């Protein structure tokens, strides 16, 4: 019943990029090298191989460039715009100024420069995106590996729970969680993280089952490797590439959800975020007065970052599984 459920692995997959498992296997012609050095060399070689294939994907390169740009912007935001951009009282301009030389994107209803807020907001979007996707993928990986490794009624119960999370409307559940808990950035991260893990759990479980059916796992067991050894030393390194792709795709989804929650007023009202800027814009009547210059930039920024992560994730996926036929 399980083998047909293993979607992403062809019967004999190419060597996974993190080949620590392979390093444990005895090498045919032993050069005068320690096992650790050998492992390092193999890992480096597979990273190079990965990059060589990744860079043939134009979309992936574009996404990577965009991400580097945004990441640099977020890291150096205090230097670029100063750390007092969020202050409502010490605002440099007057309310709702149209774009000008001084304020290239205009000002909000408190007189703060929209360009500065936009730069500052990237920090929240990236933080929430990374942490929420990290949390979601961590839960998914843990559940997937445990369910795939142990099997039996235990796995059946876990996968029932997963299935049931899968049919839950994610956004509604996240909204409800964010409503029920207190307003803070951590609530948002938690709400996104705990509602979006089931896809990862399914994929990881399938991959775990595929990995565990290979002979070297039997060898590890015969040499006395326990559950923990097999799961952390053999299965985990082999599902990591898949997890990486899932994380990248998950980040763009998390960023979109964060913006949605902030727009609904469920984010932290004190922190400046792109979704929160959109909510401010709507409350300031930007729609009815036609202030499109207030509304457009945060949305473009959200879309840009989400797209960049999606492009990277798709490129990683198609490097790992060329059968998907993602266009280059």
């Amino acid at each position, binding site marked *: 019943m399980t083998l047909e459920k293993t979607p992403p692995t062809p019967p004999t997959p190419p060597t996974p990029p993190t080949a620590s498992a392979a390093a444990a296997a005895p090498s045919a012609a032993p050069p005068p090298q320690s096992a650790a050095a050998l492992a390092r060399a193999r890992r480096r070689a597979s990273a190079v191989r990965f990059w060589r294939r990744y860079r043939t994907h134009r979309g992936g390169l574009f996404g990577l460039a965009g991400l580097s740009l945004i990441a640099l912007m977020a890291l150096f935001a205090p230097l670029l715009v100063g750390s007092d951009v969020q202050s409502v009282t010490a605002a440099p301009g007057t309310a709702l100024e149209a774009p000008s030389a001084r304020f290239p994107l205009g000002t909000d209803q408190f007189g703060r420069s929209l360009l500065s807020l936009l730069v500052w907001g990237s920090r929240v979007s990236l933080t929430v995106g990374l942490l929420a996707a990290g949390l979601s993928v961590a839960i998914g990986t843990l559940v997937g590996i445990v369910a795939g490794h142990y099997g039996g009624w235990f796995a059946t119960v876990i996968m029932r729970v997963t299935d049931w999370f899968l049919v839950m409307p994610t*956004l*509604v559940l996240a909204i409800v969680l964010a409503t029920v808990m*207190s307003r803070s950035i951590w609530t948002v991260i938690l709400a996104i993280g705990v509602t979006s893990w089931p896809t990862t759990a399914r*994929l990881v479980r399938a991959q775990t089952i595929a990995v565990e059916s290979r002979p070297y796992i039997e060898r590890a067991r015969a040499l006395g490797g326990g559950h923990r050894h097999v799961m952390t030393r053999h299965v985990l390194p082999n599902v990591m590439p898949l997890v990486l792709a899932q994380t990248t795709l998950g980040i763009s*989804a998390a960023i979109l959800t964060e913006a949605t929650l902030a727009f609904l007023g469920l984010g932290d009202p004190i922190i400046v975020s792109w979704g929160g800027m*959109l909510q401010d814009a709507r409350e300031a009547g930007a729609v009815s007065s*036609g202030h*499109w210059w207030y509304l457009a930039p945060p*949305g473009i920024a959200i879309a840009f970052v989400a797209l960049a992560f999606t492009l990277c994730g798709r490129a990683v996926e198609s490097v790992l599984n060329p059968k998907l036929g993602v266009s280059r």
Partner: protein
Amino acid sequence: MSGASTPGVVREAAGGPLGTEPSGRTARAASGTRAAYPLYVAGKLGGAAVSLFAVLVTSFFLFRILPGDPVKAMTHGTPTTAEQLATLRRQFGLDLPVWQQFTDYCAKALTGDLGMSYQFHAPVGELIAEKLPATLLLTGVAVLIYSTLGLWLGTRSAWRNGSLGDRLNTGVALTLWSVPAFWLGLLLIIFFAVGIGPIPGMFPTGGMSSGDSTGFGQVLDVAHHMVLPVITLVAVGYAQTLLVMRSSLLDEMGGDYLTTARAKGLRDDLVRRRHAVPNALLPTVTMVFINLGHVAAGSILVETVFSWPGLGGLFYQALSVPDLPLVQGLFVVFAGAMILMNLLADLLYPLLDPRVGR
């Protein structure tokens, strides 16, 4: 074979903001032993019932972990005596033990009684029934359009895989997919409803009708109000159908039977229409159903932005209070819609693909 055609679906769908994994079900169905269709149906019905029960459990306990007293929150700002609070508590059954509240809640929910709304002082079930048609109309039309569009563009894209058209197609779809729906809606309102510069306001800014017309005029009026929300939903949603269709058709394109069809001398578009597309359609059909289940919940933002008088708008109103019985009731309805659509897809799938579930 159906197992082999699904990995693309999983991966593609997994990336969506509201993505689920349609193939988990299909793979499971395929892995079933050679059970007869009635047995398969019974199994799926049982699974759906369990899921529905789980939804009731969650909806009940999720709102019980709320910090603070719902009665206090309800009477917030108005001076109330201790007796009044006690009366209210009794009225909402909050003085009973939790397990008794829970059994009462389940019994009532199964008969369609979802409690009273704090905000509207009306039964939640009635409020939902009143708003349901508007949501069904909006999302039904949107799903119909974007599924058709996605299927058509996905087919074209896969058939000319790697061409400029394909890259353009996928690129545009991915870009629109990354756009927050509510933002797109707001921009559309500014440009096409409020009007800006030389562009006149052509469409209404929100609502479902202007109210005074009857008969055919009313139909036209509603259609006029639907244009912008539907465009928003379609723009953001069609990418998923496109990507799933594209990857499942790509999976089929290596098939020997296509070579055979070509060797018979069939024209290219006949090979595509009669041989490749019907096979690639299977995962996509599942996708359409999943989307139908999702879209009711997914249109919360779009309905809010366009003040569309549907369930999504109601959910937003309930959230801002927060009107817990209403939020709870809508949560059950949204999750129930997902379960129903999943069930329908499950039941339909073996009829479309005889290899599944028999």
